[in-house]
């Protein structure tokens, strides 16, 4: 077990790689009631074409299967794992993203027992035809719930606009039609391929004794049999750098129109420190231009083009990345035109300066400190960073390294008509 210390933040992290390949991290947090653990596989909605374990050829699986598997893993021959966590006073949950499926619980008592429940249920699947069919009704309603949500439709509409082929454009839950194709055998095939310990990470944060917990995890893993680790082969079609569609309009039952402008990242294959720096640099650029302390935000607000729902974000992982900017507006076309103008003018230096960059960096450091209050944030983000060969605790040092010329270079490369798309939701 190794100990990694982050002086300024007054935090220690304990790390060990198990013999079966599972990565385990423990962050002790004194003074908290709650312990929190996430058990995550590097497997999400985009992993739909791969060589199944023990086979030789690529296979394509139905849209939404990673999310479906997440639901079904909770059900066992003798009942539901939610029940067991409740009996042990814990609250359990799970989520599926583009690139990850995470299982988690939080508890304020019986941590060891709950941790064992978490590890054992994820490592012991039970799928049957009957329960798979039953789940189609439940997930069908989950899909319809999102179909009625204009913000979700706008979000996926924008991503669909950006990508020609990349599976990031597919809704994480799939559609009622695609989940109809899911069978128990397909679930087992995905499970065997992606839930090998060497493709997974366990993160624990809370008032715990690291040595003791690590020993228990070691014993638990040594008592189970796994195939030798094997490299997972995923396949993605070639993705052109330009956007697939310049614009799209959805009509829904809303009173206020919504728009979202997307910028497709031109270099989506970065990883490690390079990726971290890129993410932070674009975030700083957006904050400088569009944040509440910018004169541009004030102008948009004063002119009635935006309201409190206006937001912007940049995210990138292996293979895809995008900035999203938008919100509710009474003037969708005018706001679209104005946002494009702001972005292109930023290339000439308008709206950005070294001084405002320094202020924004200071703000980001404060934001990062604040987010360390949240065990959920630490566990989820640490895992996301680790799967992309980054370290969450490098955020502050990398922020401090960013120079104005980095921001200018990033702006120059990112802002290009061929990477920009717009989606609108308008009243019917």
């Amino acid at each position, binding site marked *: 077990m190794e100990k990694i210390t982050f002086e300024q933040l007054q935090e220690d992290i304990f790390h060990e790689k198990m013999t079966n390949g599972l990565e385990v991290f423990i962050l002790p947090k004194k003074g*908290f009631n709650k312990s929190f653990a996430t058990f995550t596989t590097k497997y999400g909605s985009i992993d739909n074409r791969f060589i199944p374990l023990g086979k030789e050829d690529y296979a394509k699986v139905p849209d939404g299967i990673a999310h479906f598997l997440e639901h079904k893993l909770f059900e066992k021959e003798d009942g539901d794992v939610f029940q067991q966590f409740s009996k042990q006073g814990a609250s359990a949950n799970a989520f599926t993203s583009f690139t990850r499926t995470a299982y988690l619980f939080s508890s304020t008592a019986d941590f060891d027992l709950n941790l064992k429940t978490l590890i054992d249920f994820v490592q012991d699947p039970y799928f049957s035809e009957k329960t798979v069919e039953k789940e189609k009704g439940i997930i069908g309603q989950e899909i319809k719930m999102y179909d009625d949500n204009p913000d979700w439709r706008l979000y996926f509409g924008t991503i669909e606009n950006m990508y020609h082929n990349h599976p990031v454009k597919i809704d994480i839950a799939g559609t009622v039609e695609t989940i109809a194709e899911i069978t128990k055998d397909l679930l087992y095939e995905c499970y065997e391929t992606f839930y090998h310990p060497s493709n997974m990470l366990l993160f624990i944060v809370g008032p715990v004794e690291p040595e003791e917990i690590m020993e228990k995890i070691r014993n638990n893993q040594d008592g189970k049999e796994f195939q030798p680790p094997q490299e997972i082969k995923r396949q993605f079609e070639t993705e052109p750098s330009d956007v697939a569609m310049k614009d799209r309009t959805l009509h829904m039952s809303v009173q206020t129109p919504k728009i979202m402008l997307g910028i497709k990242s031109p270099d989506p294959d970065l990883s490690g420190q390079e990726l971290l720096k890129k993410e932070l640099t674009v975030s700083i650029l957006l904050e400088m231009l569009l944040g509440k*302390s910018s004169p541009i935000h004030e102008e948009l607000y004063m002119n009635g083009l935006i309201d409190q729902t206006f937001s912007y974000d940049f995210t990138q992982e292996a293979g895809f990345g995008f900035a999203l900017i938008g919100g509710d507006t009474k003037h969708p076309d005018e706001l679209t035109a104005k946002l494009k103008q702001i972005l292109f003018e930023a290339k000439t230096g308008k709206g950005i300066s070294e001084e405002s960059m320094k202020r924004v960096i200071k703000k980001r450091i404060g934001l990062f400190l604040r987010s360390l209050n949240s065990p959920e944030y630490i566990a989820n983000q640490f895992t996301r960073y680790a799967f992309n060969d980054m370290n969450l605790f490098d955020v502050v040092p990398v922020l401090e390294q960013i120079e104005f010329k980095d921001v200018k270079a990033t702006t120059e490369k990112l802002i290009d008509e061929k990477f920009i798309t717009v989606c609108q939701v308008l009243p019917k």
Partner: protein
Amino acid sequence: MGISLDTIKKNPGYSVHIVKTAQYKTNTLVLKMKAPLKHETATYRSLLPYILQSNTATYKSTPLLRSYLDELYGASFYVDVAKKGEYQIISFVLEIANEKFLHNSEPLLEKGIAFLADVLFNPNKDGESFDVATFNNEKRSLQQRIQSIYDDKMRYATTRLVEVMCDDEPYGIDASGDVESLGSITKESLYSYYKKALLEDEMDVYVIGDINEVEVHKLIDQHFKLPNREPVRMKSEQKKVSEVKEKIEEMDVKQGKLNIGYRTHIVYGDPEYYALQVFNGIFGGFSHSKLFINVREKASLAYYAASRLESHKGLLMVMSGIESANYDQAVNIIHEQMNDMKQGNFTDEELSQTKAVIKNQLLETVDSARGLVEILYHNVVSGYAVSLEEWLKKTEAITKEEIVAVAQKVELDTIYFMKGTEV
């Protein structure tokens, strides 16, 4: 177990609540203003905090104000308007880094307290009215915010249930206000309402973090000067149900939204309140509850099927999203679960499971400074001082008989269904 309690000091015009804890890397300041929920003032109270947070006489524009917060290591500052029972509560929340984790130590907490006082007492005004541009923009923004409730149909269905169920009670008023009243508010009338609220609202200041209590009191005393007042106390009216209402509305949705409201006749501070919490936990509060198991897991009708309590008004509300064609089946299953509760058809295991989860939930809530403030503020709203230990102890001791007694008091009031147009 670190269960934090607040020490309360009564100052002229307001109370100061302090929780000293080393748990967080930030300090949290919350200011709460409370007044009865009334149709005449609801929209004023909904608009006011957004004007105050936009700018002040010191920071005359939003960019200036927000740049100042950025300089304070990205202090987070936001406002919120909510109802608790038949009160409408305005919150100002400032979260600021604790200087001990930063290279260049600045007196951030002191600056934070001074900033909050500036927002509250020193608005950007023009004589006896708010700055015209700020006023017009926030008015427009609030109108969009009110309209956006309609755009999110899950939320809109919840709002409609409360409107139908409490149509002749203050609780039926939405805390965001309404577009019609908004139209009649002027920058002068809002300013005079602001002066009145400063004189009459019940005010509470919370400071949570690794702080020096003596120093914090000194700073608060220095920056927050208010006259004494006698806050208005309201006891939520407990209405008997004379006839069950059923309201079905057609809307352009792919999924029907089913919302059911009950009256429990029990509020926070009542002796039966703890049993009511456990009742709700067995019935629909969690993923081991009867609603989740029977509506979702067994019948496969829904993705969400849950219930929650409004503790200060004594309401129980069920929500679920279903195929419109399955309305009767879903309503029947929900009725059966309620009948089982009334007849005591639940196991000792369901009881102990629910107690364990409630305990866990309470302890988790106080792990965040914001959650802690919300728990502590229940005492201000209800007028009863309940400590977290007491809450946990009383929950642990609840018996099956007490839950059945609570279940017997629960009355079905309104079934609201937002039905898809496709069926």
